[in-house]
């Protein structure tokens, strides 16, 4: 079915929500989920983003970062993760008890390992 036709019935894939399996790299997600299982609890409510210290100074969004991890968009992720200050505000607002700081820390670790081909 062509995209246009699908769209007419309202179930086309929104491009920004599509996961491209050719370019997605699941290694980071696997590494983070293994080291910080609470990552799986995130339901993308955005509470962390609303309170974020770094987000007040730059375009930084932990919820978006979580999406990048899930989708394996490594390049976007790399820029995003470096901006967090590990201040811990998000930890206190997260309704799901996601250990947000460690998600950031393990992601940074995973990316470094990826660069060194250790992942």
């Amino acid at each position: 079915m062509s995209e246009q036709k699908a769209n007419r019935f309202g179930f086309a894939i929104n491009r920004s929500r599509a996961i491209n399996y050719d370019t997605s790299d699941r290694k980071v997600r696997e590494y983070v989920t293994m080291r910080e299982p609470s990552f799986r609890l995130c339901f993308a409510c955005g509470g962390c983003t609303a309170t974020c210290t770094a987000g007040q100074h730059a375009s930084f969004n932990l919820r978006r970062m979580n999406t990048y991890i899930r989708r394996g968009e490594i390049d976007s992720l790399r820029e995003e993760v470096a901006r967090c200050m590990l201040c811990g505000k998000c930890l206190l607002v997260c309704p799901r008890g996601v250990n947000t700081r460690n998600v950031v820390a393990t992601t940074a670790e995973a990316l470094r390992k990826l660069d060194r081909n250790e992942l």
Partner: protein
Amino acid sequence: MNSDIFVWPFNLGLYFILIYSVVRSTIWFRNLSRADKLRLQRGFFGMPFMQSIREIFMESLLHRRIFKKNPVLGYMHMSLAFGWFLLIVFGTIEADFFGERHLNPPSHAIFFRWFNPEHGASGLAAIYGHWMDFLLIFILSGLLLAVVKRFIPGMMGMKKTTRHTWSDRIALISLWLIFPSRLLAESFTCGAHGNGGFLTGNLGAALASFLPAADIAPYFWWLYSLSLGTFFFLLPVTRYFHIPVELLLIFMRNSGITTADRWSAYTEVQTHACSSCGICISVCQMSRAAGINDMQSVYFVKGLRNERDIAAITANCLMCGRCDEVCPVGIELGPLRLIERRQGEREVTKLKFFDRYGLMRRREHIEREPTQSYSYLTPEEEKPADVLFFAGCMTHLTPSVIAAMKKIMDSAGVRYRFMDEQGGVCCGRPLMLAGRDREARELINHNSDIIWKSGAKTLVTSCPICYKVFRESYYLEAEVMHHSEFINLLIEEGSLRPGYLHRRVVYHDPCDLGRGSGIYDEPRAVISYVAELQPVPEERSMSLCCGGSLGNLTLSSGKRSLIAADAARILTQSDPDEVITSCPLCKKTFAKATETRVSDIAELVAAALPKPVRKTRGRASLAAVKTVADG
């Protein structure tokens, strides 16, 4: 005079350990920085030397600090260390005084009775024999406790006892054998010759009544010598190495050497000075409230010593500092953990047995590569102020604390500027706690710039985490004050006049403010001014951590809640009206863990302030006008 080859295991062990100690100390000394070398040399010829001797006597022999924490455990350590020391001293005197010659080799003192079997039948020598027996029984009583502790740790009021490596085990067995074999060796010899003190004499006579004492005695002398020799040979690769190393540590510390922020000979000496006493386990809330029993400082230090992979252990700690507070050896456990965190991943090497004698290796200091970058921060323009108020990230999550601080400062007529009203930049301590010091520097520079530009004389913060890092890692002209200190100052000056609230409250010392920065009295002074302050079981330097600590990156929220609930339970034992703390993070953490109301010290004071006069009068007069009009 008897001479026998059985003394050789002992002799070899003794000479080995003496030479080894000299070599190892020399290596450590050589690896000290120049400044530390100078300190140590100066310390050796001055007051620190006398101090060290005193400390060695009080701590390494009498174990005063362990005694204070746990008398039974203290007695165990004291009887073994001090008892053995006395046995050696008086044994040497005995050999010198009653022996055939003066200045005997050590083996003649240790195996005195073997070489002088006829000695001590009567007179002064017999009395001396009783004294030596007394010392032996003193040691044996401690040994009995040690055996009990190993098998039933609960008996000594300790929850858990430390785990052993196999070399520790062999060393432990040889240590345990030393004194019983001495007892039996002496008893058999005494039994065969019909002399000896109240212990060896009587036991010997009893044994000799049904056994060929003279034939059996040599076996036990062999065992005695072998266990001593084995113990000495294994000493450097076991936890018992702490005995000589602690002496060195005491000299170094008293000479003014400190841990600083990198691996050094001093940090290595500290890791070897841990006696694995396990006191740090029993105070750690991770074990007592959250059931996590593998990350306590004793395991961390052991991992460092044996170069294991301890990344998980290093990360999984609240950095609350309770263990630092109780460690009888005075190891700076928090700073050591931070150094290890800064290092990041390390290559794990499986140490071979001989590597563990540690003559060739040296821990390299590698800093982890930066992962974070804050180049997006733009410098702020100049905004002068006398008093700067920095709420801190966490305080922004407790708006009631900010409101209370505003009310207090307005009421006292303080002219201040709210530095991070529109949301500031993190102080940098959370990054430092995660071992990312270089990245933290970027934030520190950013904030310092704002503070310097304001020309402020005073910087007030509501968060102990920020307070600690402002004081320790920022270079500032402004005086840094925690809001509890500041409020205390305002009350003392008379510019703030809160009333008295009829509430019974307890105070929780936040880790970074209390143990971390030594601020215990000011908050208490403030609270006592406005309410009735009740004592809690563990407070001041032994106060509990709320469990919310940013010092631990990996701890799950479930475990945090367990720690918070346990701490809250202890805090509210006296059923107070309110729990007061002075850390926004503690407040948030406890609020979820207890039914009792939890407030910040600023909120308490703000509640005690008289209502602003003008507004009430305004409303009252309006009401008056209204009634007049209606009437």
